[in-house]
């Protein structure tokens, strides 16, 4: 499966301590929402999970093994912007991952092999609602469509872990709502552990199975350099939301994602948590 263990991780940039003493165990198939004030190190933590940065102290394990120290196909990522390749069409953006896998020299497939992955990619595009846009370039898509494309692209390589850095931060409110549903569905249907950074508390509570807040314990200007952020809250979301067991019959229990999205006031539960978070 795909459990992540963060064990007593510190991160320093030169003299500045950004994160201190982060320990977190993430169960397989969780959806962890990471919140916290701007500049507290959320992106830094994500980049460590990605392997782009290494912890200054401590270690990160993926399924008990030390993390590969560079980004790789077992961890997918969606950024707020620049996630898709502007020079590739929508379809090519999705197939490129498979092409990398199967064609070590050219990074490109032809004929039958190409058609096979294209049909796979088509399915993914349909799943994210981009069917019919295969031959467009990303610049011709709206922001929301680009983020859907980025999701499809990331899912093509079937990563065990999906990392999201404010993926919907630049989207309009209405579009955001739609894409939240999509996100929940994708999480539900794929064997994914998700870690998502967000600024938006209601988004965190709407999507996550668990909300983790990072915060600096001491935040006076003169202390900024010397003290990093650490985990200040770690709340399971209520009512508990569990991903669909894949390949088991679907009706075994309510689909929590669809349930969450169709309740009349989806924010009610969240609000309570909000207050809890804000009471500091």
């Amino acid at each position, binding site marked *: 499966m795909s459990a992540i263990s963060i064990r007593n991780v510190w991160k320093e940039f030169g003299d500045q301590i950004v994160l201190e003493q982060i320990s977190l165990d993430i169960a397989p198939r969780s959806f962890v929402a990471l919140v916290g004030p701007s500049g507290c190190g959320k992106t830094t933590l994500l980049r460590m999970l990605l392997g782009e940065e290494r912890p200054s102290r401590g270690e990160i394990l993926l399924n008990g093994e030390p993390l590969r120290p560079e980004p790789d196909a077992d961890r997918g990522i969606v950024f707020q912007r620049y996630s*898709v390749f502007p*020079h590739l069409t929508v379809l090519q953006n999705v197939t490129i991952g498979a092409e990398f896998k199967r064609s070590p020299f050219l990074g490109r497939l032809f004929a039958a092999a190409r058609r096979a992955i294209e049909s796979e990619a088509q399915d993914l595009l349909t799943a994210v609602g981009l069917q019919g846009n295969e031959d467009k370039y990303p*610049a011709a898509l709206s922001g929301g469509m680009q983020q859907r494309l*980025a999701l499809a*692209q990331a899912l093509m390589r079937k990563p065990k872990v999906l990392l999201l850095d404010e993926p919907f931060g630049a989207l309009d409110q209405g579009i955001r709502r739609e894409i939240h549903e999509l996100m929940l569905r994708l999480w539900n249907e794929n064997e994914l552990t998700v870690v998502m950074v967000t600024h938006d508390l209601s988004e965190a509570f709407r999507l996550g199975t668990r909300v983790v807040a990072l915060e600096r314990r001491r935040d006076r200007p003169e202390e900024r350099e010397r003290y990093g952020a650490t985990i200040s809250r770690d709340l399971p979301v209520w009512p508990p939301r569990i991903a669909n067991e894949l390949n088991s019959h679907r009706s075994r229990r309510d689909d929590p994602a669809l349930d969450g999205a169709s309740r009349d006031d989806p924010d009610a539960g969240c609000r309570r948590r909000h207050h809890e978070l804000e009471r500091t």
Partner: protein
Amino acid sequence: MRVLNLKPDRSTRLLLTCLPFALVAGSYLISSAVRLAANPNDKLLPSLERMGEAVRSLAFVADPRTGTYLFWNDTLMSLERLGWAMLISTLAALCIGIPMGLLPIGRALLSRFVAVLSMVPPLALLPILFIVIGLGEVSKIALIVIGTLPFLLRDLALRIEELPREQLIKAQTLGGSTWHIGLRVVLPQMLPRLIDAVRLSLGPAWLFLIAAEAIAADSGLGYRIFLVRRYLAMDVILPYVAWITLLAFAADAALVWLQRKLFPWFAEARAS
């Protein structure tokens, strides 16, 4: 209304565009007429007829010695040199520039070196160039390559560094190797940008072509200009300069067209 908001209509715009050209042409014609009135043999500012005649005899009368039409032969030779040089420059820029911009090791190895190289005045190094690669066509092409390559390299490396880091990371999370990333993420995105850089370096390229042809050649536009400069044959020089300007303009337009045609995604992506 503010001048800033005055938008001339189509015909006014056309008129305004033509105005400076007309002024230059007019002042040429007047100065030329004045000088020719004083000395009918004056060579500095020949009349239009003189220039036309000179062009006619170069372009439409075969040279008795070589049997070629000098004007067209010069053009062909120069364009060939320029074409080869820019092709080599561009390919070299891609082969060296991509590793240099993409890999931290490449950057450490080359960026300073190329920065220094780009400051060396190539004309001053001609003697060494001759010794190393001789005096034939190769040396002319080499001079242009040496003159343009450092700029192309630096520009390319810069553009690669400007690529959002997110793209490179994304490519890695899709399982791409360094080679994959260079080939399928960086290279195709650099091609249209390289066209922009080539457009910018065409000016210097012409300059170096003319300089190279001035130094040792038996044909070419620069050769002819410098040859006839010995006897101040402005009736040949001016049409040649105009022709070079036209060719440069056409090359530039062709590159713009090529960029739009080959990389339809680029205009949109750049705008956004």
